[in-house]
């Protein structure tokens, strides 16, 4: 491991070409300063405009107080000085798994990524700590002009496209964590789908934090040009340590007229990860943006996938599930802004709390005064598995146009002994019975996921239910 000073010496090597470096690992000292931000930009050999945005964002982050809502007592435990802001474990982003360092490849093998890639994906990017270590996309998509790169390569190869859209949906000043991400971002995905191209099979990104006290700050930008479509899937895991890690991503989606973007996440960070993510899309005329968002892991998640319905006839959907176990707080929800007429939106939120876990639905839907004939539908259901656990719902609707049709339903339920007994009488153990109820509760969500992910999610939930019965 090297200090920032040593890392800067490596940067010297980098300018002469990476292959001269004998040690491919760079780990920055913990802590954040303008210099760290500049170092990250320099190590990546970025254009000046990007360095400038980073520095501005850093200053905003430093000045901006912590949010005064959400789980403030957990937030105040984040020690930004103890986080490592940049760690590179591999020399380059490979497009052949055999070239990826063995230790890292083994990790992704265990996670089943290469296997899934062969069976059902159009492309894969695998990020380990700060950088993508593997990347591939099917040749036929390249031939159709689809760009699917890790964000750093995207910036190198398509600087104009990145410059045009970067921070256009989520400005760095949006919130403290979007400022942090913009200052220190590394990795993530850059996708451009040309006019009229439909990417039939999903592309996947997999994010892995492996080191202690690591901060992962990937940045994703997806642009779907007119009449195109894409389904992007991301998964996340990390090992369990007694000390905390920080994951703070920013995702920006641009759905140009008539396009369709679906963004699916199954987040299973270990219970020592703070997961503070800003996800937002802008939907132009007759386009459609869907967020399918599963939150199973992490210590604290604060994430509210958003859609700005800017173009007439556009549609937004946010379908999310959250599981909060011992020591976990999933503060999740959705935000949708109807700015144009004839726009429609749907929010479906399902949360389960167990063993003292805490689930919060926090949602906001607005309809602007100029937006005529909008339709919005919000359903949030919570299932509480024991007396120690907690569920809160904060739905907000601000409707400034009287032609809007609004529907809102909320429910909180508990698993009853009679329900368990019924299933047990059919040969299922108490744990199996609970898993059947829980998987059923999540079914409206899992049926929206690609099958492989749905199976994975059900397995995860069955694991979470194991040993849950006293």
């Amino acid at each position: 491991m090297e200090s920032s000073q040593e890392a800067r010496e490596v940067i010297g090597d980098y300018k002469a070409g990476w292959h001269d470096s004998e040690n491919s690992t760079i780990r920055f000292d913990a802590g954040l300063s303008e210099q760290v931000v500049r170092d990250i930009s320099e190590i990546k050999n970025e254009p000046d405009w990007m360095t400038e945005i980073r520095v501005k964002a850093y200053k905003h982050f430093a000045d901006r107080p912590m949010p005064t809502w959400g789980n403030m007592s957990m937030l105040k435990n984040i020690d930004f000085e103890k986080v490592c802001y940049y760690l590179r474990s591999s020399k380059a982003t490979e497009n052949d798994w055999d070239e990826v360092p063995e230790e890292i490849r083994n990790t992704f093998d265990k996670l089943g990524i290469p296997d899934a890639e062969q069976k059902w994906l159009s492309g894969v990017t695998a990020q380990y700590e700060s950088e993508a270590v593997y990347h591939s996309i099917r040749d036929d998509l390249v031939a159709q002009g689809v760009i699917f790169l890790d964000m750093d390569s995207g910036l190198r190869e398509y600087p104009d496209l990145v410059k045009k859209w970067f921070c256009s949906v989520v400005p760095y000043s949006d919130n403290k964590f979007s400022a942090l991400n913009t200052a220190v971002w590394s990795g993530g995905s850059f996708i451009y789908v040309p006019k009229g191209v439909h990417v039939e099979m999903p592309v996947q990104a997999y994010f892995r934090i492996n080191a202690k006290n690591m901060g992962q700050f990937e940045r994703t930008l997806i642009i779907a040009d007119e009449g195109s479509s894409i389904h992007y899937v991301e998964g996340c895991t990390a090992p369990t340590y007694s000390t905390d890690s920080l994951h703070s991503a920013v995702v920006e989606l641009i759905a140009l007229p008539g396009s369709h973007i679906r963004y699916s996440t199954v987040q299973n960070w270990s219970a020592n990860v703070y997961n503070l993510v800003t996800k937002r899309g802008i939907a132009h005329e007759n386009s459609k943006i869907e967020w399918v968002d599963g939150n199973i892991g992490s210590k604290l998640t604060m994430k509210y996938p958003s859609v700005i319905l800017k173009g007439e006839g556009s549609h937004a959907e946010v379908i999310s599930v959250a599981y909060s176990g011992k020591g976990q707080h999933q503060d999740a929800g959705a935000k949708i802004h109807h700015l144009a007429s004839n726009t429609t939106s749907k929010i479906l939120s399902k949360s389960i709390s167990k063993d003292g876990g805490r689930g919060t639905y926090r949602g906001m839907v607005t309809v602007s005064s100029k937006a005529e004939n909008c339709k919005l539908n919000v359903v949030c259901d919570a299932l509480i598995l024991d007396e120690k656990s907690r569920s809160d719902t904060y739905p907000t609707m601000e409707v400034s146009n009287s032609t809007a049709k609004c529907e809102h339903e909320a429910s909180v339920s508990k698993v009853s002994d009679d329900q368990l007994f019924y299933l047990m009488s059919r040969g299922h153990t108490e744990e199996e019975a609970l898993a059947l109820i829980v998987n059923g509760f999540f079914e409206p969500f899992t049926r929206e996921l690609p099958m492989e992910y749905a199976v994975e999610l059900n397995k995860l939930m069955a694991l979470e239910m194991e040993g849950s019965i006293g």
Partner: protein
Amino acid sequence: MESKTPLLEIVNLHAGIENNKILNGINIEIGPGEIHAIMGRNGSGKTTTANIIMGHPDFDIEEGKINLNGINLLELEPWERAKNGVFLSFQYPQAVPGLQVGNFLKKSVASIRGADAAKGVNFRGLLKDSMKELNMPSSFLSRYVNDGFSGGEKKRFEILQMMLLQPKLAILDETDSGLDIDGIKTVATGINSAIRGTDSGALIITHYSRILDHVKPDKIHVLIDGKIVATGDASLANDLEENGYDWLENKIKSEGEV
């Protein structure tokens, strides 16, 4: 019959819930291939008896034993009882939103009768035939377990489960209520074909003699205040239907045991 080991043996069963005593010494013996019925007013302990045989955790057993083919059921968890062949058709089947009927049936068959029974044509054939017999459309399989089912649909679904799980002892708790006459006939046919001429047995809990006209039980037990006060043949049901429980109570008072 006498020489055979009984299928189900309930001996001097005393039980209650949270210090309320409900059963005051019940004795029932069902032989292989036999169908028995329990009749009684609301609150007499019929459903409690059914729940206790299945193993509902809320009840306290104070005394007595329940054996199935010589196995002590009281030592087993509900799912172990199910695997040993006990089946309860619930009076109020529970809804499990999001759990598809087809998936649930497959999982339950796998759990109770083994993985092979839940596979391929074995499973699909029996499923198809049983659903046909019960007049259930195949679209039923993609619905969620008891979620939004009508009363009749719930009861048919219970019988469908019985036919697929092939229990040794089927307990049917007011499966006839909520069914029309055709439904009752269908259910009765299902029970007869599942039990008669096999080593299995059934215990039917009901308020009405109508289903018993079709099933023709070997014995009828009348339960009053947690005790079986009368046991007789099928004609007892008709007497009760005509004269009511008061008649029986008065008769017992004047004559002692029936």
